[in-house]
């Protein structure tokens, strides 16, 4: 694998992790527009642990994810009181606040950024991404995911059915934050340098965009969204200076043709039926 290919795959991995961090709360109808802030918490916490306390990378990254989840739990009570567009605004503001805190925090370099000597090579990033994807796919088959979908369908009736709506929302928010934190910690140790400005609004918003592009109704959506979002600009390099114009046109085209995302449950069923037909040509599925 060339250096370029490895580089693209690593970016893809970080985008996939970020996508699932956004997807989990979104599965409970919460739009988190401050995901970059949670990545920053994980990145700085893990980097500080390996640099100042000489921790090994793996535990440091996990604790970074835990720190991010902890921040989510602390802010969940005030933030999850808001709904819809107001929740998006509140998380947006939170992301800004977190980024501003690190911009002024001297122990981790403040505005000058923070050097991270401990290095996580590409294969470690691949393995961690695979593990996160596996965990999210496992979660999607549990009752927890079923209840989140119920909540997304109709929060009022979910409450009448006795589901603990509040606890489910907080859990989805915190697990999403933990994934973002782990992604941030990996990022810090792969690129060996972090600065507060990296974890900005644009990062939060583009992540949400490609999750929406992939589709939020199935667990495959964020994966496909991240794939398309990462790889399409690379393919479009043939367009030279026009590639981002082409890319934007593609995105608009995708959203026009598939407004509920590239991957929908309906698409899954149709693919399933097609495979069945192919496997058993004699017995056509109506």
């Amino acid at each position: 694998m060339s250096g370029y290919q490895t580089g693209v795959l690593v970016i893809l991995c970080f985008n996939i992790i970020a996508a699932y961090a956004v997807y989990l709360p979104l599965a409970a109808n919460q739009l988190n527009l401050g995901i970059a802030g949670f990545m920053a918490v994980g990145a700085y916490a893990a980097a500080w642990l390996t640099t100042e306390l000489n921790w090994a990378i793996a535990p440091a990254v996990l604790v970074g994810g835990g720190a991010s989840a902890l921040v989510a739990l602390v802010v969940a009570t005030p933030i999850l009181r808001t709904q819809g567009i107001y929740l998006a605004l509140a998380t947006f503001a939170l992301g800004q606040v977190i980024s501003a805190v690190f911009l002024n925090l001297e122990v981790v370099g403040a505005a000058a950024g923070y050097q991270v000597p401990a290095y996580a090579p590409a294969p470690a990033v691949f393995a961690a991404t695979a593990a996160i994807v596996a965990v999210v796919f496992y979660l999607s088959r549990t009752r927890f995911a079923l209840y989140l979908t119920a909540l997304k369908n109709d929060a009022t009736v979910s409450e009448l059915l006795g589901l603990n709506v509040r606890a489910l929302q907080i859990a989805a928010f915190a697990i999403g934050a933990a994934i973002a934190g782990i992604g941030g910690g990996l990022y810090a140790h792969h690129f060996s340098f972090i600065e507060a400005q990296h974890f900005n609004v644009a990062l939060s918003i583009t992540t949400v965009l490609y999750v929406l592009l992939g589709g939020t109704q199935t667990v495959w959506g964020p994966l496909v969204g991240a794939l398309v979002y990462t790889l399409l600009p690379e393919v479009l390099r043939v367009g030279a200076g026009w590639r981002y114009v082409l890319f934007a046109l593609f995105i608009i085209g995708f959203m026009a043709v598939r407004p509920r995302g590239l991957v929908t449950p309906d698409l899954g069923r149709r693919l399933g039926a097609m495979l069945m037909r192919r496997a058993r040509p004699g017995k056509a599925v109506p």
Partner: protein
Amino acid sequence: MALLEVEGASVDYGRGRVLDDVSLSVGEGEIVTVLGANGAGKTTLLRAIAGATRLAAGRVTYDGAPLDGLSIGERLARGIVLVPEGRRILISLTIEENLLVGAHQRRDTAAVRKDIAAIYERFPNLAQRRHMAAWCLSGGEQQMLAIGRAIVARPRLMMLDEPSLGLSPLFVNTLFGLIVELNRGGLTVLLVEQNAGKALAIAHHATVIELGRVVVAGDPRALQADPRLREAYLGQGDDAAAGPIEPILQRGTGV
């Protein structure tokens, strides 16, 4: 002794009192119906019993113990299950997933499977489409699923909020047949209806509320036979036909 006892229940929404000093009693194994026009406070009464709405005054006693301060989930665990108005099926979930959500408090997985199988046997239409999204169901089938979702929660008291609303006459008959069948199986039923004729025909006891207050309570046959009552509180009652009876008082939609 009564399974459910509501004493002097009052509920305020904002500055208005939507339920005012309502008392009623539901004996174990009975069907009790609550009738009244839109906005009379019937839905509020059920929500208060289920724990979704707080009482401003009064109390609800269930199985000999007061329900004060218990959450919806805790009341559900004691067997109080509400089938909400308008079915409120979770439309993007499959039929089977809807039933699993209904059984979410139960840990006896094998018994849940058995209960779900029994529901499929009772409603073959649901069985055929168990893995399809619930939006593909007709209104009547959605109502069956809503009741199925309540059954898998193992209710002792099932509260139904206008289950016949918007259903075809054929389905209304099926529905009331099902309610009677469940009741004969030992289930206690609190039924809120606008289809007064049908509800009075199956109930052991009836209460009529108007603008949040109980105006008449008693034997459903007596209510049905009294033309003055029927005219005053139940509209120009036609008990044979389906469809809601024209309410006299229109105060917005059901709260």
